[in-house]
């Protein structure tokens, strides 16, 4: 299957010529015709293609030595990584959006990644066709074609050097994140090293730890609001059946009085109105189809039981006397046989992007599900996100501000200091309990303000919130339910 070395050398020269002429030479033409300037990442991708072509010329000149082939594979693999890293900045944007102008409908950073991937494939094919004795018999003398390839390479690299001097400058200046349009006029040249600013990080804004509400300060006196009125715990109730795991989410159905409880072991309990009897129980399979992180919230959506995990993924289940064990086996690790899964999904947010949630509520008037984000070291904001019941797509988001009458303890304090672990809608308001500073917030869903706040001392690890008439029921991690009089601001 091996090709004669002379033909293989010609094929390699062809590949080098295409690589240097089309993507690398074409990029210079784009600068001359369109004023297109590469960003610092584009420069590296372009340079890598140039270096692969140069390795090809080394092989043409000296033969297919292992170190040349190794370096070419290394450059191809690195180029694929660069393509992924660079394209990831823009791939998830909306239709037609991207960085700089597309070329044949595809942006240049994607082309560069694709070309490196093709390079790896071409290297594999050439190796496949390489005769065993090629290193010894490889023709070393220059031919007209190899001289032409070398000349073209020098011209294209020289043109790139001139463009680089104009757009990035001499050392120590480097390429830019947002490069300025190419010009021959020096007064338009901007040389910078701003890409060196900022600290090093492996994942940047995606370095977000899972929230641990129990690690927060529960003392209301240390919270962002001063002079808070008190709302005292009037008593405790307890879920009368043993839960398998810690209680992490809680809801009450206003129509039937039934309760919904979820645990950190993916258990979902439908309880009667006395909290003493389990009507249905399932344990979700968190690894089936959609990655469910720790369950953190529960809501009644009509007859549907909606449960939410900290990564904003959700599961919808329903009591179903006709549930078929054979079909439900894939959804549940355990089941009492009377529950069907009706859906799995993931909420997509904008303002609450890269933030976990610890609360879940349903607004029956607006037919919307609600989550409240918890701040993290990278993203410090409290975002209320609302999703349409019909399609579970984001309807609106807002960051509530402190309303008039609330006094901040210091200028730098904000609603983002709270860690909301339970939420419920009642009388057009969102009641939210914060494990940090044991504070109950009353958020106006129309004005997007926190219209009242109350210190609730004595709570221990609040994880959920439900409403029962004029009472608020605060679920605690150990399975107790603290009863608090519902304030009417």
């Amino acid at each position, binding site marked *: 299957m091996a090709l004669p070395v002379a033909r293989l050398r010609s094929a390699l020269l062809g590949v080098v010529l295409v690589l240097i002429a089309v993507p690398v030479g074409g990029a210079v033409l784009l600068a001359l015709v369109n004023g297109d300037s590469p960003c610092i990442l584009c420069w590296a991708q372009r340079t890598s293609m140039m270096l692969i072509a140069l390795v090809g*010329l080394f092989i043409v*000149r000296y033969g297919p030595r292992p170190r040349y082939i190794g370096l070419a594979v290394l450059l191809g693999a690195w180029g694929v990584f660069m393509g992924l890293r660079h394209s*990831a900045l823009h791939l998830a944007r909306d239709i037609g959006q991207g960085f700089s102008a597309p070329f044949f409908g595809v942006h240049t950073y994607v082309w560069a990644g694709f070309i490196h991937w093709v390079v790896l494939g071409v290297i594999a094919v050439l190796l496949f066709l390489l005769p065993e004795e090629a290193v010894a018999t490889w023709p070393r003398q220059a031919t007209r074609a190899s001289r032409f390839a070398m000349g073209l390479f020098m011209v294209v690299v020289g043109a790139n050097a001139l463009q680089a001097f104009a757009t990035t400058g001499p050392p120590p200046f480097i390429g830019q994140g947002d490069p300025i349009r190419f010009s021959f006029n020096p007064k338009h040249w901007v040389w910078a090293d701003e890409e060196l600013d900022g600290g090093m990080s*492996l994942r940047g804004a*995606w370095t977000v730890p899972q929230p641990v509400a129990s690690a927060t300060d529960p003392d209301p006196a240390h919270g962002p609001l001063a002079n808070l009125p008190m709302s005292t715990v009037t008593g405790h109730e307890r879920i009368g059946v043993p839960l398998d795991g810690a209680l992490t989410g809680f809801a009450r159905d206003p129509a039937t009085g039934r309760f919904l409880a979820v645990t950190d072991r993916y258990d979902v309990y439908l309880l009667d109105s006395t909290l003493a009897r389990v009507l249905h129980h399932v344990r979700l399979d968190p690894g089936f189809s959609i990655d469910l992180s720790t369950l953190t919230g529960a809501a009644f959506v009509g007859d549907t039981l909606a449960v939410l995990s900290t990564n904003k993924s959700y599961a919808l289940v329903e009591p179903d006397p006709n549930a078929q064990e054979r079909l439900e086996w894939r959804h549940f690790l355990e089941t009492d046989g009377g529950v069907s899964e009706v859906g799995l999904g993931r909420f997509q947010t904008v303002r609450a992007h890269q933030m976990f949630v610890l609360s879940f509520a349903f607004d029956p008037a607006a037919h919307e599900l609600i989550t409240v984000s918890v701040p993290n070291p990278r993203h410090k904001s409290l975002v209320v996100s609302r999703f349409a019941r019909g399609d579970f797509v984001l309807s609106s988001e807002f960051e509530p501000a402190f309303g008039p009458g609330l006094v901040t303890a210091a200028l730098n304090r904000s609603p983002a200091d709270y860690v909301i672990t339970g939420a419920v809608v009642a009388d057009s308001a969102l009641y939210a309990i914060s494990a940090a500073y044991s504070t109950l917030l009353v958020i106006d869903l129309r004005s997007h303000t926190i219209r009242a706040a109350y210190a609730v001392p004595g709570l221990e690890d609040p994880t959920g919130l439900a409403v029962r008439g004029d009472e608020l029921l605060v679920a605690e991690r150990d399975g107790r339910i603290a009863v608090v009089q519902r304030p009417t601001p």
Partner: protein
Amino acid sequence: MEFLNFLLILCTAWLLWRRPERERLAFGLLVVSCVLMALLFLAGTHTSFVPGVNL
């Protein structure tokens, strides 16, 4: 720095073309160019080395 790297690449190509007996030097320069290219990419991504997506 990109400009400097292109000058290095030009030097390497010139050695390859006009001084083929200096192969070791040419290959050394080629490796330096590769490392400089990689470092410049890492400089541009040092605030998040891996793609900003779910891994």
